[in-house]
């Protein structure tokens, strides 16, 4: 066996949120992702195509021609970005975090290294957001293939998706640290994920909903993302700055809540 030399210089005191720790944790995610990226990519591309064929072509051919002057297939296609983001951020964060903590003991290994809970959670959220930000753009690309005209504003879509996914990954991590059993994610999905997904303005404009629901929908991050993506495709409005600020605030709040909950869960 090689000798352990112990010749390392006197260690510096490690600070909060060290980039090396965050990158280290993310490198673990990347190494794992390399083993399953094909399946994830396949479903991420296929799903929006199926949705667009079913809702876009199906409904537009029979019931809805256009919404607010936008062909229905383009209306749904731009809205589908939000669907892709929530399903590729909140759900992996919930289930992935729970499995890594409870079944694989991964976090015990990481926290035995010079990494703290804040760095661990930040890295997990960043990785999910990067992935989701990328996959979130696929429905937009598919919609372009179905006839949507490209626009310069669409280049901001990865950023919008990234920030929204950051928020939903924080939400997912916080939920994973809160539930006692994996079955309890059914409540989370039924109470939060599905309503947020349905009242985002993806498949129909929220203006058609009762006034109270419209007000509530304004606090739905997915609705704000849908509006931003459509702004990128069909033209921004000044309110879009507020929408982006809202998403940034959502991400900041869920980040801190996720750290708080994970600290309670991981540190005895």
């Amino acid at each position: 066996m090689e000798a352990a030399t112990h010749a390392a210089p006197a260690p510096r005191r490690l600070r909060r949120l060290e980039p090396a720790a965050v990158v280290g944790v993310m490198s673990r995610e990347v190494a794992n992702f390399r083993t399953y990226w094909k399946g994830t990519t396949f479903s991420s591309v296929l799903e929006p195509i199926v949705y667009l064929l079913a809702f876009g072509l199906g409904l537009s051919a029979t019931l809805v021609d256009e919404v607010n002057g936008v062909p229905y297939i383009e209306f749904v296609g731009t809205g589908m970005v939000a669907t892709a983001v929530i399903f590729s951020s909140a759900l992996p964060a919930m289930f992935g975090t729970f499995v890594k903590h409870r079944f694989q003991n991964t976090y015990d290994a990481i926290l035995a290294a010079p990494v703290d809970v804040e760095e661990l959670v930040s890295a997990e959220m960043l990785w999910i957001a990067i992935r989701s930000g990328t996959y979130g753009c696929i429905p937009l690309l598919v919609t372009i293939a179905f006839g949507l005209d490209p626009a310069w504003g669409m280049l901001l879509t990865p950023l919008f998706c990234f920030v929204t996914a950051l928020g939903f990954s924080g939400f997912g991590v916080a939920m994973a640290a809160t539930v006692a059993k994996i079955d309890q994610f059914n409540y989370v999905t039924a109470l939060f994920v599905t309503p947020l997904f349905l009242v985002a303005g993806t498949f129909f404009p929220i203006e058609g909903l009762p006034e109270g629901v419209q007000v509530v929908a304004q606090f739905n991050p997915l609705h704000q993302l849908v509006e931003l993506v459509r702004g990128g495709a069909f033209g921004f409005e000044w309110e879009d700055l507020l929408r982006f600020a809202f998403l940034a605030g959502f991400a900041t709040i869920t980040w801190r809540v996720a750290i708080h909950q994970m600290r309670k869960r991981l540190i005895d």
Partner: protein
Amino acid sequence: MAAIELRDVVKTFGPITAVDGLDLEVPEGICLGLLGPNGAGKSTTMRLLTGQAIADSGELRVLGHELPAEAKTARGQMGVVPQLDNLDVDVTVEDNLAIFARLYRVPDVGAAVEKALDIARLRERRRDAVDELSGGMRRRLLLARGLVHEPRLILLDEPTVGLDPQIRTELWTLIGDLKSHGTTILMSTHYIEEAERLADEVAVMHQGRIISRGRPVELIAEHAGRFTAEVYGPPHRLAEARAEAEAQGLSVRPAGPAIAIVGSERTDGLVPDDAVVRAASLEDVFVLLTGEEAD
């Protein structure tokens, strides 16, 4: 400077006191075996040392760093080999090592991985996913992962629990090599043979505190004397032998189908002729002190 200093450390989980006024000092360069039955507080002590558990009271210092405030800095200089296998099973052997080299901020990740592959003797399997490895290989990899940054202190939490004897012996050789290179080791175990074979000193932990500590031979001499007589026979005979030995103030413990009269050299000729007399062992000490059967 001691590598580990714990003073009057208390850790409770609700109504359960897992660590109860623990005092422990581990000088640099030794292997200390923390020997105790299940539930003695060994794993909680290990988690306190890595900052994964926060003590209710007491002082903790690891490699000169106060815990929990400087736990992250302390962790940078120590390696941990956990009781449970928490390797990334879909990832290759070398990626598992590289991930942890990065987490430990090793400047030359490639060189650290090469060295760790040698320690684990897994150079030929470097590109295999972990779930293709045998149990022994995985355990060696787990140990090498804890050493990838050449730590000054290594915490081994039940390093061979649940392993078959051959793999256990392999790991003992690896740990023995580590000792010979001067790395400070704190090893929790409930295997007597493991502590006897690897530890320079043994601390017997029971109900959250250290109840005795010393070199194995010293502990044996202090608590068990020189010889132990094992008496076999039907229950009434064992009861008689026990009563006679206890009347002389000797300690008697069950030993499978027999009873063991500890310190039998002091029996003044009362040991039955057919008793099996052997050298006193650390197991005798363990059972006498904790009242628990040893593994």
